[in-house]
């Protein structure tokens, strides 16, 4: 049945990696030796064909093996990576319905964006470096998505972070841009800190990072050691998922770690489209859905994910309303849409999350590429206050942009309508047992955010493409134009943004219209999402009944009602945006601005969150660093004044000087303090005088896969946890009289 050679999965990753290596090694040479035009052709042909190969392989393996062959799961061991004790971390690749969706989206959208980049970066001197990084990003992203072990996924996770950083700082001559890259990297590292701690937490129970092994442990539902074992007083599942979610907030730009994404717009626009809209930033959503069976065991985490997602969706949308930078609007829109995905994931609507991830990849990539086209045409000006009327010169860009706006705003029958609606209905339906309030909150936040989305997207569209041009005459006559290499990808993406929604045709619409289309995506993802439904019975009523939309929780009428509300809201705010901005900034818009006053200011300044972080985190940190520096470094250097006293020569002179400046004495003092510290931590302990018989011994038991703690036969035992003067003794049984054990 398996007609495709098994190297296929690996070659999906290796193809872009080879492209990257080629351009890193030979690109520079080519750019120097060959005529400019030829060199650029070599560079981009290598890069594009590398991605095209990956794309082709993805489609072929998907079609031949999964669709035609009927194999839903393909595991490929590249090489057994690490054995450590009983753990084996293989460099294994896993192709299942979830990773299949991801590789198709990543390679498909990636290919289109590579092609678009040829036009956008046409005159950049570092052409080869750009494509090398872009290919490297593709390879990392595919590792992330295809990794079977979470450690392999983490390698990709860090890889995409590094590439993102390299590409944000791509135009590094500008210090602000380089520092935007650094900000993104460090914020991502904070997220990664959570990710890796989450891995440790999972490891303490599962003793493996393999997704299947984790699933096997989670399969026991409420009896799983993930739930019964406590870490820091909380079930491991909750701790691990919360920490992993911290990683997701970093990578996927959610509150509180979202501020890097708007700054990341400093990078070239195709990069924003690929990395900061369609693929990398959705890695967090992918991770949650990949580990859905663990998250389903942690209702607290799920509630937090949902609330953070919902709040981010609304919060970012309200900022998007007032921004003037075309890319900033789209950036906040991305943050907001990612919030929707997390809202869905937090409600357990895994299919909806992936559905929105996919449709969002299409329409947001189209929007970003469209904005790139506009920026290129306006001579690298990004301010929508100086645009307007561009439709006349760029009809295709305007058309595709408009379609994408319809899609993102959730207008029937464009893709966003279906996916967003599924999230909103899901938010309402998936009753978590312990708080229905979360559902109402999620639905409410989502609906208000949908209104904002429709408003700011059409505001953006009308200010950019309609009305009259507000920039200078020269740009209008000489620059504004569009090129086939740039509009072809736009058209393809707009087409996908139009039709992709039909993959998730809702059941209710079928009932009403009589058009019973299958919910293709749900059926496709069933093997992946069914696991949590089976495992997490006690927590999620909705999940227990299997998939979404045929669980009978909402009637057809109610679902149609939800659709009506979200569609109505979207249309109303579309029309309102058109009224306010249909022909430049209307008087009415100004009036609203004045009426909102402080609220407008707050949104315009992004709620001063950057300033807040600066005051609360960055400055105290810098202060601490300065303190350490002053104490341990500057003090000493200033004291000695190395090199400050020129003319003083001779070894003896130095000896005298060193002895007389008190410096060495200070050092010795520190050394003594250190030894004193070592002595004090042990002798300063009040319990040292009480010589207890050492019946107490530390027993460390290790929860095995079954969640049973090893007991020491029938002997009662105590657990002593001690650290300095702090000591905690836990009695696990009656104290045996006169049981005096002790040291050998």
């Amino acid at each position, binding site marked *: 049945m398996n007609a495709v050679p098994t190297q296929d999965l690996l070659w999906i990753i290796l193809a872009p990696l080879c492209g990257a290596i080629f351009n890193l090694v030979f690109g*520079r040479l080519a750019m120097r030796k060959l005529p400019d035009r030829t060199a650029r052709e070599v560079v981009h042909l290598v890069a594009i064909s590398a991605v095209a190969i990956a794309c082709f392989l993805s489609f072929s393996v998907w079609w031949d093996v999964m669709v035609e062959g*009927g*194999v*839903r*799961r393909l*595991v490929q*061991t590249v090489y*057994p990576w690490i054995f450590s*004790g009983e753990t*084996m971390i293989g460099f294994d690749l896993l192709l299942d319905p979830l990773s299949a969706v991801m590789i198709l989206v990543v390679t498909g959208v990636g290919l289109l964006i590579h092609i678009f980049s040829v036009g956008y970066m046409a005159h950049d001197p570092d052409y080869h470096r750009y494509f090398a990084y872009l290919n490297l990003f593709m390879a990392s992203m595919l590792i992330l998505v295809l990794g079977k072990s979470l450690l392999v996924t983490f*390698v990709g996770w860090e*890889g995409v972070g590094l590439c993102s950083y390299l590409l944000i*700082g791509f135009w*590094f001559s500008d210090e602000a841009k*380089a520092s935007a890259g*650094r900000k993104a990297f*460090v914020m991502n*590292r*904070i997220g990664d800190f959570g990710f*890796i*701690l989450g891995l440790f937490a999972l*490891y303490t129970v599962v003793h493996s990072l*393999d997704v*299947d092994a984790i699933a096997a442990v989670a399969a026991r539902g409420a009896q799983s050691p993930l739930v019964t074992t406590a870490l*820091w007083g909380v079930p491991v599942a909750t701790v691990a998922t919360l920490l992993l979610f911290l990683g997701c907030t970093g990578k996927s730009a959610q509150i509180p770690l979202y501020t890097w994404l708007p700054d990341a717009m400093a990078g070239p626009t195709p990069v924003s489209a690929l990395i900061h809209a369609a693929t990398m930033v959705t890695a967090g959503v992918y991770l949650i859905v990949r580990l859905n069976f663990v998250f389903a065991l942690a209702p607290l985490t799920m509630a937090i994910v949902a609330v953070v997602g919902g709040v981010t969706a609304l919060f970012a949308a309200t900022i998007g309303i007032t921004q003037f930078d075309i890319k900033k609007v789209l950036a906040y829109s991305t943050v907001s849409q990612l919030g929707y995905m997390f809202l869905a994931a937090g409600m357990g609507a895994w299919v909806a999350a992936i559905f929105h991830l996919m449709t969002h990849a299409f329409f947001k990539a189209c929007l970003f590429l469209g904005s790139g086209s506009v920026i290129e045409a306006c001579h690298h000006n990004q301010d929508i206050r100086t645009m307007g009327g561009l439709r006349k010169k760029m009809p295709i860009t305007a058309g595709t942009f408009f379609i994408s706006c319809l899609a993102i705003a959730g207008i029937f029958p464009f893709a966003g309508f279906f996916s967003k609606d599924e999230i909103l209905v899901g938010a309402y339906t998936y009753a978590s047992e312990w708080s229905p309030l979360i559902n109402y909150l999620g639905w409410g936040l989502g609906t208000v955010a949908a209104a904002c989305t429709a408003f700011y997207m059409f505001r953006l569209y009308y200010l950019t493409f309609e009305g009259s041009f507000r920039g200078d005459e020269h740009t209008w006559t000489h620059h504004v134009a569009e090129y086939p290499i740039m509009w072809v990808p736009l058209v393809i993406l707009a087409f996908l943004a139009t039709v992709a929604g039909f993959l998730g045709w809702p059941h209710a619409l079928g009932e009403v219209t009589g058009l019973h289309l299958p919910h293709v995506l749900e059926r496709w993802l069933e093997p992946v999402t069914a696991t949590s439904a089976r495992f997490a019975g006690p927590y999620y009523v909705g999940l227990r009944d299997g998939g979404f939309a045929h669980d009978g929780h909402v009637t057809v009428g109610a679902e149609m009602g939800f659709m009506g509300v979200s569609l109505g809201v979207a249309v109303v705010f579309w029309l309102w945006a058109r009224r306010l901005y249909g022909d430049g900034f209307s008087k009415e818009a100004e009036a609203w601005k004045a009426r909102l006053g402080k609220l407008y200011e707050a949104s315009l300044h992004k709620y001063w969150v950057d300033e807040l972080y600066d005051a609360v985190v960055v400055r105290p940190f*810098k202060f601490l*660093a300065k303190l*350490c*520096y002053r104490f*341990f470094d500057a003090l*000493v250097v200033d004291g*000695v004044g190395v090199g400050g006293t020129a003319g003083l020569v001779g070894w003896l002179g*130095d*000896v005298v000087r*060193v002895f007389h400046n008190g410096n*060495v004495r200070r*050092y010795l003092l*520190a*050394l003594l303090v*250190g*030894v004193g510290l*070592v002595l004090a*931590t*042990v*002798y300063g302990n009040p*319990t040292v005088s009480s*010589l207890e*018989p*050492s019946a107490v011994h*530390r027993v*460390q038991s*290790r929860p095995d896969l079954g969640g049973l703690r090893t007991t020491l036969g029938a002997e009662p035992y105590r657990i002593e946890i*001690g*650290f300095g003067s702090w*000591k905690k003794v836990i009695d696990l049984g009656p104290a045996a009289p006169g049981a*005096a*054990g*002790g*040291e*050998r």
Partner: protein
Amino acid sequence: MTHAPFVADTMASATLQDLGHLAPMAIVGLWGLLLMATDAFAAVGFRHFQRRIALFGLALAFVAGLTIYGNADYDGGVEVFRGFLVVDPFSAILDLVLVGLCAGTVLVAGDYARTHRFEYGEQESLLCIATFGAMMVGHAHDLLALFLGIETMSISVYVLVGARWNAKPSAEAALKYFLMGAFASAILLMGIALLYGATGATAFEGIRGGVAEAFTRWLRINDLARALDQGHTASPAASDLVIQGVAKAALLIPGVLLVLGALLFKVSAVPMHMWTPDAYEGAPTPVTAFMASVVKVAGVAALLRLFVATFSTHRLVTAPYGWTTAVALVAFLTMTVGNLAAVRQSNVKRLLAYSSIAHVGYLLLGVVAAANFYGEAFASDATLGGDGLSWSRDAGDTAVASVLLYIVVYAVASLGAFVTVAWLSGNKHEALEAYQWSGLARRHPGMALGMTVCLLSLMGLPPMAGFFGKLFLFRAVFENSNPWLQFLVVWALLNAVVGAYYYLRLVVAMYFHTPPKTAPVVLPGKGAPAVVAVTAGLSVALGVLMQPTLDRADLAARAFNYPPGPSKARRVDGLRAAWEARDPTPPVAAEEPSPGT
């Protein structure tokens, strides 16, 4: 060990045999002396021969080390010179690593000294002798061997630091380092004296026995008190025994802590780290590389040999008497201060010096974790009559392996980074300010790439080796059920975020800033590029091909706190058997859905 009766005619052959076991160390020591002699005869202008001779000797030592490395005869540990030193898989790894690091330094030191006009022939000799001392620390199985090794290494390094006679900071750094080091040595000797007083032994095995005995007697004092309370009378002999135990324990604990203080100075843990930035900055940069790699490896080896393997009986490890509390506190301070101070540095050498301090903080966490596990294993052996095959001991072995892995990976990357710094000093002025590194990637893409790989490895970015070093180290610590240690892992990971910030600044400067008009002049010769290529290559290769490294580390750490002998050999052989038996195919998940629909 039992002392064989002294027989004169077998002595010579026994010595020769012992030297055979110690071949790598012996060769390096011998070459130190040989180089001293050849220097006396080398005419000016022929000094580069010294380098060739040294490299030849180091290559010989490396080959000799390879015959021991992986040789199953040494699995149980072979005691040589009547238990003064030991040859086992742990020392075999250290021998190879130390010889390699020394060769890396030798390749650069000559070029650097010539360019900076302070060339002297003893340099290679001193490097070999210092490495000999470091290797002795790795082989140490007796407090005196440990002391001799540390002193042999330190005294050579004092000279190396001060050898740059034409620059004041060098002499100043040497003098400071020497004064501080002498003070630390005094503390170390004081601790050794107290330990000898408490246990009557200087050999590690003897100390281990003495520690257990002292504590057993000490703890009887409660029984004694209870007996007296109940109106029993204790015989004078019994009381004497108990009181002797108390007296011995009273000597023992300060002894342990003084030795600990001295070793923490050697690895430059906060607050005994003050000398580090100055000494690192003032020393000729190749010597700095040597200090950051060879000396650090030796210090950590000493902590492992003495503290983790020997002072890891339950009572010495756990609160309220345990030393691990102190080390955990020091680890916390070390990583925090090291990282925060590094953030402010614009001087590359000082930045790397502080970063090396921060790495010691992470390593100390691993030391604490390993000792805790061994303490638990010891307690369960004592109370349950276990056969020592408890999970705690396995976990302790894993933690030791993680520490070993981390220090090796760190030393390799650190050598590469410092050698790059040394290389950028061709016009007698070292390019130490970050701005001088601007745009290095444009002028020297190869070296910039090498430096970047080393920095990323230090930062802990996958798939570099440094990532796996951190992963295994922190995982081992996290396995401890002590919530404070788990908190320290959280703290260490946050520190790693700070580390990313300052390492990245250098990478940003090299790649993203425009080069200054005057290009920094680089050292002549191929030595430095070769070293950077090898260290960067290793930093990647050890990560991507983690398995062989990890296997060796596991082997070296297997039954680490066992005395040399057949039972240790059995456990190590068991590990080899497990390797052979292991299934290279991934474990099949319990609930793997069957293919096809």
